[in-house]
């Protein structure tokens, strides 16, 4: 496919891995680089990138899987709406995440109305096609996905589609990266910044991290050559003693991001504090629906009470999300926790570190 296969060229991969090995030798010490985005984690394991880079460079997964950082209470709330007869429209990844009492897929098997959609507009179409139903779209995702949900809310208002609502759980990446740096518990020497989030917010969104925390940042794409070039730029900065933001993914990411998307976000949402699984409440790290659009906010229009949520005992998703442990260090990993019997969200989502390590982790090593 155009713009994909070019970035999988094995000759170029050979050149760049050779350079990485050379610089890594020069750096000498152990280097820990965090790939913030779950899509990066998937590409890294899938393409065997960890085996192409020298042992003193370690790639650590971060909190960039939206399903994984969504707190249990959100799932409980979605299930509560399903109980009350609302029609839940959701991206497929959310279906099997365990809540305190069960998952959405279990709700569906009990005959509740739960539908998987591919796009926010599909949920809007559901609302149009079934005017007698109250349709709730589960608004999950980072800055990449939030504008698509904002677009659907904006269209709903323009067209007066009154039975369409959103359960807003959107989260923002830079505040979570800041929280990781502030916590001081994660030892990392550089960030591979999420490429597709950056198409919206622009590479400048990470400048405060390089400036205030002296940490190198490289906005990186998702093909093998992109990731290797991201690693190359990061360790080159470390070798030179620099900390700046570089943009490896300039074919789709600009300095300022996407103005139309940011305009939609500003119109429909407002920035608010948000609860992250494993990280607690992070200031200004999420979106809630703005007052002008409160008719489309199901929590304002039809508030429900949910009991305090319960996590499954022994699940260490929180530590995996903060980059403190590898999935295999969790006693539940593989047995009893696996994709057929997930204990926590990181084993459910195809972008969850535990699920990815389960699927692509190599013999003996993991």
């Amino acid at each position, binding site marked *: 496919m*155009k713009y994909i296969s070019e970035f999988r060229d094995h000759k170029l991969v050979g050149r760049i891995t050779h350079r990485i090995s050379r610089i890594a030798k020069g750096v000498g010490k152990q280097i820990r680089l965090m790939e913030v985005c779950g899509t990066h984690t998937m590409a890294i394991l899938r393409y065997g990138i960890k085996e192409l880079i020298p042992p003193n460079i370690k790639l650590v997964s971060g909190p960039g*899987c939206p399903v994984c950082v969504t707190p249990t209470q959100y799932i409980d709330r979605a299930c509560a709406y399903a109980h009350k007869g609302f029609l839940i429209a959701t991206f497929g990844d959310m279906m099997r995440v365990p809540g305190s009492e069960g998952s959405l897929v279990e709700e569906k098997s009990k005959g509740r109305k739960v539908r998987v959609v591919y796009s*926010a507009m599909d949920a809007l179409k559901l609302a149009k096609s079934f005017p007698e139903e109250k349709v709730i779209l589960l608004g999950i995702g*980072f800055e990449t*996905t939030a*504008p698509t949900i904002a677009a659907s809310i904006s269209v709903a208002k323009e067209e007066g589609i009154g039975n369409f609502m959103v359960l807003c759980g959107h989260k923002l990446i830079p505040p979570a990266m800041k929280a990781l740096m502030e916590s001081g518990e994660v030892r990392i020497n550089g960030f591979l910044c999420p490429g597709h989030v950056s198409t919206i917010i622009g590479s400048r969104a990470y400048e405060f991290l390089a400036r205030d925390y002296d940490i190198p940042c490289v906005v990186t794409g998702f093909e093998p050559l992109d990731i290797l070039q991201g690693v*190359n730029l990061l360790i080159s900065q470390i070798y030179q003693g620099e900390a700046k933001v570089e943009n490896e993914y300039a*074919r789709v990411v600009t300095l300022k991001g996407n103005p139309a998307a940011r305009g939609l976000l500003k119109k429909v949402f407002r920035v608010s504090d948000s609860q992250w699984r494993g990280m607690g409440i992070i200031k200004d790290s999420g979106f809630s629906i703005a007052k002008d659009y409160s008719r489309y906010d199901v929590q304002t229009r039809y508030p429900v009470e949910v009991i305090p949520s319960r996590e499954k005992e022994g699940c260490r998703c929180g530590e995996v999300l903060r980059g403190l442990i590898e999935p295999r260090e969790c006693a539940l990993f593989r047995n009893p926790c696996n994709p057929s019997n997930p204990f926590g969200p990181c084993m459910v989502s195809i*972008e969850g570190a535990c699920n990815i390590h389960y699927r692509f982790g190599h013999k003996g090593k993991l």
Partner: protein
Amino acid sequence: MCIAIPLKLISKEGTKGWVEIGGTRREVGLAILPDARVGDYVLVHAGFAISKVEEKEVQQLLELLSTVS
């Protein structure tokens, strides 16, 4: 969940467009990328075009990578 793929925009009508993938057409929303033009390659995420692929940058990166040593 942040997966997005570059696809060619083959037609456009207001805030709706159609992209081609493996010989089939799929509708994409253009609300986030209103300036996209027919013939552009656009990055598609969850049914929306979110960014345009800049050919110039593709060539620059590939050239840079081929001179890495």
